[in-house]
């Protein structure tokens, strides 16, 4: 048990260090109301959900919920495949979760083509996860084309963030 807590703390620290947006740890500062300053000055509080390996926060922040693509491409990069290996492992362990994969494109394309390109990207992720053992019935895809950019500048630094496929997980029944 002690070992597990130490591991969780280490992972949590790594996760914090890797994240540039502290606001996403919105519950990190919420101290448990039952927390007491015990003898010896030891504080106790609830764990940050992102430190719980079975939580959606852990999935999105520690494993990584998205993969990025080159311009006009739906080929998975080596980094993307590594992320998806993690996603497949997590989905294998947490078998009550379903996934919707959102495909996105940058703004430098026509609306219709970008919808189709987003569908290709989402499907590339879906196929990879299936090849790693995730049941196809647990994964749906949707393309947003260029409708939902994350970054709004008209430069490659933003386009690179927008050419993405994001895996959204939720607990649910396979229909």
């Amino acid at each position, binding site marked *: 048990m002690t070992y597990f807590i130490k591991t969780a703390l280490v992972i949590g620290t790594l996760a914090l260090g890797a994240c540039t947006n502290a606001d996403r740890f919105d519950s990190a500062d919420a101290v448990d109301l039952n927390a007491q300053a015990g003898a010896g000055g030891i504080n106790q509080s609830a764990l940050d959900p992102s430190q719980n390996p079975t939580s959606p926060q852990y999935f999105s922040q520690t494993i990584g919920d998205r993969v990025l693509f080159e311009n006009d491409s739906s080929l998975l990069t080596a980094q993307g495949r590594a992320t998806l290996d993690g996603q497949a492992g997590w989905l294998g362990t947490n078998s009550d979760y379903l996934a919707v994969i959102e495909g996105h494109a940058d*703004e430098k394309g026509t609306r219709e083509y970008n*919808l189709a390109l987003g*569908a*290709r990207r989402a499907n590339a992720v879906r196929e990879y996860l299936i090849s790693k053992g995730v049941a196809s019935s647990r994964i749906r895809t949707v393309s*947003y084309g260029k*409708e939902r950019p994350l970054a709004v500048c008209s430069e490659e630094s933003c386009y690179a963030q927008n050419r993405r496929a994001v895996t959204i997980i939720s607990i649910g029944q396979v229909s």
Partner: protein
Amino acid sequence: MMIRFLTFLAAAMMAFAFTGPATAQEPLRLTLRDGVIEALPFALPQFEAEVAGSEQMAADISRVVAEDLTGTGLFRQIPATSFISTPSGFASPVAFADWRAINAQALVTGAVAVNGATVTVKFRLYDVFSGQEMGEGLQFSGTTDGWRRMAHKVADAVYSRITGEAGYFDSRVVFVAETGPKDDRAKRVAIMDYDGANVQYLTDSSTIVLAPRFSPNGDRILFTSYESGFPRINILDVASVTRQQLGTVEGEMAFSPRFSLDGRQVIYSLANGGNTDIYRTDLATGQHSRLTNTPAIETAPSFSPDGSQIVFESDRSGTQQLYVMPANGGEPQRISFGNGRYGTPVWSPRGDLIAFTKQEAGRFHIGVMRTDGSEERLLTSSFLDEGPTWAPNGRVIMFARETQGAGGTTALYSVDITGRNLRRVPTPQGASDPSWGPLQR
């Protein structure tokens, strides 16, 4: 880039040699085929108020008729301050010498009568230099809230008599109204007059809506909606503003729909397993057909006006290019061979041209080509132009333009098919994905 553009302009000007306005001996006629470089001067004295209380309506209708004509870039209104005389009444003889003296080639006179909720508009058109009336005088009657349509009908008749072409002013455009920042944009299907007046919203902003398309007679609108969480095609009845989902082949998403000319069939794109192909659904029977079957992206289909062919885009060659295939599917012929990528083809209602979006060297263009791909002409150039739609007479194209950067916004523009007269279409907010409806009856 600039040199290329200038070369294009020069070529366009040579190809469309200038023919000036008619001389005193020839009947008044602007031949659009030859292109028009110098706008034809016309006089339009404010229409007479035939009954008391009609003055404001007469002024408003006169203004809209003149704006329709000058908005084409083909006509220039002579200001009233230049007039030597003004007509004493709609029925009075025309003092042609006074209009010749200020070089008015055409004279439009009119009269407006408001009686309760009804308005009647009369007009006559004169060829000033020959001293003849062009065609018979006409009158239009309707309810006062439809007064802009009557002004458009007057302008359509004037345009048609002088150019020999059908008009396009009494028409509507369906589009996507956009508000909010780029990363949280709200979109609504909206409808308006061709000149941006009378905007009405047909959907709320609760979900993403894309690319509305008019039926050929303007009674229905197809659009793509994310209401179910996944892109699906909706059919909206314009009169009742009720809508239903189009039953399509099962797939991850259905989008990019268009009607056939008889309004009975819908062609669209369907993605399955990440692969997008073109399908057709018969609205009456619910029967589906698959028209393309390749691992490439096939999308943006558009019927030829005779219904026999479909133009669409495909990246089967490795980049987006335009192809034409028989309406029932079959072997497509590639028609675009220039540098860059070609998308969103739309067949002209006259059947002679295909408008498209072209991407080349980081710029977007709206262009036209013959249906065999020859005589490509780029009409516009900007950071992002896309989604052309044809005026009902096939002489003008409307499209969406998006500006660059974090604060980028969308707007509608129109341009004529010679690349002249680029104008912003006024809309209350951002606007994209225009679809130009038919001339109204």
